[in-house]
């Protein structure tokens, strides 16, 4: 996918910048983006190591089994293919909990750990498996109880009621989640059928 999108983005942007005489902006844009990527990675290195370490402790205790039991019906429905993969189940459960609690910077490391484990039993290592797609869709839908970032921004802008958005966010995020899960399930079914024919 990115082998196609990436060059198109760059080619269009560069040609447009030349035609519209916007080269100076483009120049600073290039260096700014690379800087941003480095800054993000350095921040990420910290949280990634922290949460990978914490999940590794959890994986060795009974707490992960308790969490798993709680989330079992959901995981069974969303990820029918990893029935026998305890490790993947554990990591997906932790990723879900971090997402629900609005801990974005904990959810990503935990989700990426789950991806690694799912890749181990992926039949075609070049392609995303069904479970991987479901995990990614769940993470892009960002189902959460407290949208912390946006509440912080709202109160910094002097809102009279920064938390008034929580209820509408629940409805919107649940609708988005259901839509994402439904279309993923449908596409999995459709693609499987086509492959069998």
């Amino acid at each position, binding site marked *: *996918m*990115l082998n196609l999108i990436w060059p198109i*983005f*760059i080619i*269009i*942007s*560069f040609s447009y*910048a030349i035609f*519209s005489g916007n080269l100076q*902006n*483009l120049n600073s*844009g*290039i260096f700014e983006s*690379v800087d*941003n*990527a*480095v800054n*993000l*990675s350095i921040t990420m290195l910290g949280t990634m190591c*922290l949460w990978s*370490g*914490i999940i590794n*402790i*959890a994986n*060795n205790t*009974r707490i992960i089994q308790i969490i798993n039991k709680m989330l079992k019906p959901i995981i069974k429905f969303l990820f029918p293919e990893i029935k026998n993969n305890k490790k993947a189940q554990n990591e997906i459960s932790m990723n879900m*909990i971090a997402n629900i609690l609005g801990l974005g910077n*904990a959810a990503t*490391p935990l989700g*990426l*750990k789950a*991806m690694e484990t*799912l890749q181990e039993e992926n039949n075609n290592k070049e392609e*995303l498996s069904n479970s*991987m*797609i479901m995990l*990614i*869709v769940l*993470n*892009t839908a960002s189902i959460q109880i407290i949208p*912390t970032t*946006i509440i912080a*921004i*709202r*109160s910094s*802008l002097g*809102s009279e*009621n920064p*938390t008034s*958005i*929580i209820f*509408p966010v629940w409805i*919107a*995020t649940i*609708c*988005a989640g259901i*839509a*994402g899960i439904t279309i993923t399930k449908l*596409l999995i079914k459709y*693609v499987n059928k086509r492959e069998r024919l």
Partner: protein
Amino acid sequence: MIEFINFVSNLAMPLIIFIIVIYGFIEKKEVFDKFIEGAKDGIKIVINIFPTLIGLFLAIGVLRSSGVIDIVIRLIDPILRLINFPSELMPLAILRPISGSSSIAIATDIMKNFGVDSQIGIMASVIMGATETTLYTIAVYSSSVKIKKTRFVLIAALTADIVGIITSVVVCRFLSQSFS
């Protein structure tokens, strides 16, 4: 209310770490060794996704700084007008799936210009709370396991985004109508 929510959000992360460490300690596991072992994996993951981040940020950065995004917004404008989508929110709706930092900047800008507690300001906040930076999430997750063929994940994730954005607008309209 706000104090309580702040308290809960501040509590969440420390509490998780606390509970896990306590459990490990009570069950007499080598807590620190396990932590170090896991943290090492964290480094590997970041190194795996770093090149993707550079590439992705570069593509988004040039798209924005060259002004191409502005043209795309102008092209999509008529379609969104057709479904009665507030045009003030359009740049946000388009950038939200692509770039996290610029969508935060745009949302903040909208809230400043129209008022944090105005209908448009609230809609922008709800959109931010209910959606994620889809393109970035897909790229980071796929590249962490070095997968290039992503099948239908983009379609599925973008559908979720569109539903989330439209629901945000509809819910805010409905709530403000029934309260005024």
